[in-house]
């Protein structure tokens, strides 16, 4: 065993690698903490910025309560020109709306006159209609044919209503009584066979037995009732339809007489005129409703422009807020102190406090960003050192460091930024060495081991020295190993292919 040659005081290479890895992990954890803290700080700063924006908007609204000549005239001279532009556009829109409103008022007046005229015309036609209707009633009262037909029509109408009720009653009676016939097995049997009809052709015993069954249910009488219930409602309904047609013809005759007399006295013409004028009045009313809706929309927009909830006001306040946002803190303070009221001073105090907070957060964030960058670099360097350590095979069992070697001071100096990665690596490299192999231990001089040839030579000599011992052992085991070819051969092949100064890898550790 190689580890048997390492003294207890020496530090193993693996321990040094473990220290580098744990340091890298600690640096990564700190990096993550800094990252989290930075994120929290940025969120807080964003919230402060948003609040400051709101306060600036409040300040802008305080200085510009409405887009009027007075408030724009009192605004800051730097933005007064732009605010006056907004004011001009607002006034122009108000003027347009006012003109539209005036036009709508004129139209409404005109429509009112039109409606009055149509209403007057309609009232005259109504009077005329009532007069002619009275005349029509007098004339029809003296017309015998009309009176006879009217009385007949009235009678028939009442009779028709009674008939309809009777048809309904007959249908109800059929629906109540027919199921009993349909559910009777004896009656149903005879009905299916066509008993009592020319289609019934049975003879002999069957005919006699069918007659016996028919006698039990009194088939002839039951069949008559069954047919009556089935057919009569339909016949009654058809008869009622026929009577309704007669009634319609009668009513047509009555209406024809009425129409003739109405034409003669001019009532028909008045009615047609009335319908035409009525439609005109409806159209005028529809137009008035539409125009009233337009007028209401104009009034609503004018009311909106008078208040703060309109686009012009939002544009003006936005511009003023933009201006206030761009002002230096001292300039803003001077502006607020220069005014008479205390409201803007209070808002300014709030803004100043938020500015301080934002500034402090920005400074702290810069520091944290620098720290994060440093930690990121250190983590990369430590990972690189560990990789280099492994490539150099310092983590092998044969890699040792002298007793009392402690890499921690160098690593701490590296973490404080007082030593570079290269300096740490050189310190590690200087202290590290590999324990010799058994071949190196038995070699007379280290110079002999510098070539592959010399290595093989020493190895052959060493093997020859131990040959007697092995031969005895081989002799003892040969009998036992007979039948297992290639046991000794394998060992020899492996030794031939070993590299100089090491074995399995390009370095010296393995």
């Amino acid at each position: 065993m190689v580890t048997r040659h390492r003294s207890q005081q020496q530090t193993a290479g693996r321990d040094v690698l473990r220290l580098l890895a744990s340091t890298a992990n600690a640096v990564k954890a700190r990096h993550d903490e800094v990252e989290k803290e930075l994120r929290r700080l940025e969120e807080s700063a964003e919230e402060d910025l948003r609040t400051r924006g709101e306060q600036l908007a409040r300040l802008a609204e305080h200085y510009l309560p409405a887009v009027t000549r007075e408030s724009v005239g009192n605004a800051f001279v730097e933005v007064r020109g732009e605010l006056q532009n907004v004011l001009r556009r607002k006034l122009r829109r108000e003027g347009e709306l006012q003109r539209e409103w005036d036009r709508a008022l004129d139209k409404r007046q005109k429509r009112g006159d039109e409606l009055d005229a149509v209403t007057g015309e309609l009232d005259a036609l109504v009077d005329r209609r009532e007069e002619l209707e009275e005349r029509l009633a007098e004339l029809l009262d003296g017309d015998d044919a009309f009176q006879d037909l009217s009385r007949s029509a009235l009678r028939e109408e009442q009779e028709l209503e009674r008939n309809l009720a009777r048809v309904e009653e007959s249908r109800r009676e059929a629906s109540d009584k027919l199921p009993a016939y349909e559910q009777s097995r004896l009656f149903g049997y005879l009905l299916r066979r066509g008993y009592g009809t020319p289609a019934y052709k049975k003879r002999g015993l069957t005919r006699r037995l069918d007659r016996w069954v028919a006698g039990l249910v009194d088939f002839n009488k039951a069949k008559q009732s069954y047919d009556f219930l089935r057919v009569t409602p339909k016949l009654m309904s058809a008869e009622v339809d026929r009577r309704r047609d007669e009634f319609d013809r009668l009513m047509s005759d009555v209406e024809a007489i009425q129409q003739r007399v109405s034409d003669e006295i001019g009532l028909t013409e008045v009615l047609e005129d009335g319908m035409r004028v009525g439609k005109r009045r409806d159209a005028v009313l529809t137009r008035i409703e539409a125009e009233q809706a337009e007028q209401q929309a104009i009034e609503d927009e004018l009311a909106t422009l008078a208040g703060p909830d309109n686009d012009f006001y939002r544009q003006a306040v936005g511009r003023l807020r933009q201006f206030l946002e761009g002002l230096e803190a001292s300039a803003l303070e001077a502006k607020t102190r220069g005014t008479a009221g205390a409201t803007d001073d209070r808002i300014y105090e709030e803004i100043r406090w938020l500015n301080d907070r934002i500034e402090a957060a920005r400074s702290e964030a810069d520091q944290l960003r620098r720290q994060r960058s440093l930690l990121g670099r250190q983590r990369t360097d430590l990972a690189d050192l560990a990789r280099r350590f492994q490539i150099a095979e310092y983590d092998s069992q044969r890699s040792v460091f002298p007793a009392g070697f402690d890499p921690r001071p160098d690593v701490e100096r590296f973490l404080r930024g007082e030593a570079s990665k290269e300096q740490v690596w050189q310190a590690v490299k200087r202290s590290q060495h590999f324990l010799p192999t058994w071949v190196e231990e038995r070699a007379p001089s280290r110079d002999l081991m510098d070539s592959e040839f010399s290595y093989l030579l020493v190895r052959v000599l060493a093997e020859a020295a131990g040959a007697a011992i092995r031969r005895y052992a081989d002799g003892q085991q040969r009998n036992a190993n007979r039948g297992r070819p290639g046991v000794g051969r394998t060992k020899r092949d492996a030794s031939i292919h070993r590299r100089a100064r090491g074995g399995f890898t390009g370095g010296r550790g393995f």
Partner: protein
Amino acid sequence: MSSQQQQAPPPASASGQELSIAEMTRIMDVASTLRRERLLATRELSVGDTHRMLRERLLETARVTGDPVTAAEIDAAIEHYFQSLHEFQPPAPGFETFLARLYVARNQILAWSAVLGGGAALAWAFFGFAPTRPGAPAAPRLWGRW
């Protein structure tokens, strides 16, 4: 359709010529049926008049015979009569009616009997309901007989 009918000349009514006696009879039958149907419908539509006429006659009869029946009782009797009119009267239950029911259902009874009998015969054939030797398996017994 017989050949005589196929070769018969078209109806005289189709060509507007003189109608045959058979056609005239058929037309009169149709007209008579229509008239009867219309009369029936008219009578049923004016059933109120029938009620009134019947009521007057019954009252007159009661007056003549000296029956002390009241007008309200006559109205109730007329109402009951018209309500029970055309109602189906089932046969009185008894042995005769039972036999009549069996008779009208004879085809179904025969069909079910045939199905059950066929089923029983098949079951007997496969499972040996009448074993020839006690304890012997059913199928060999059956095949042995075949």
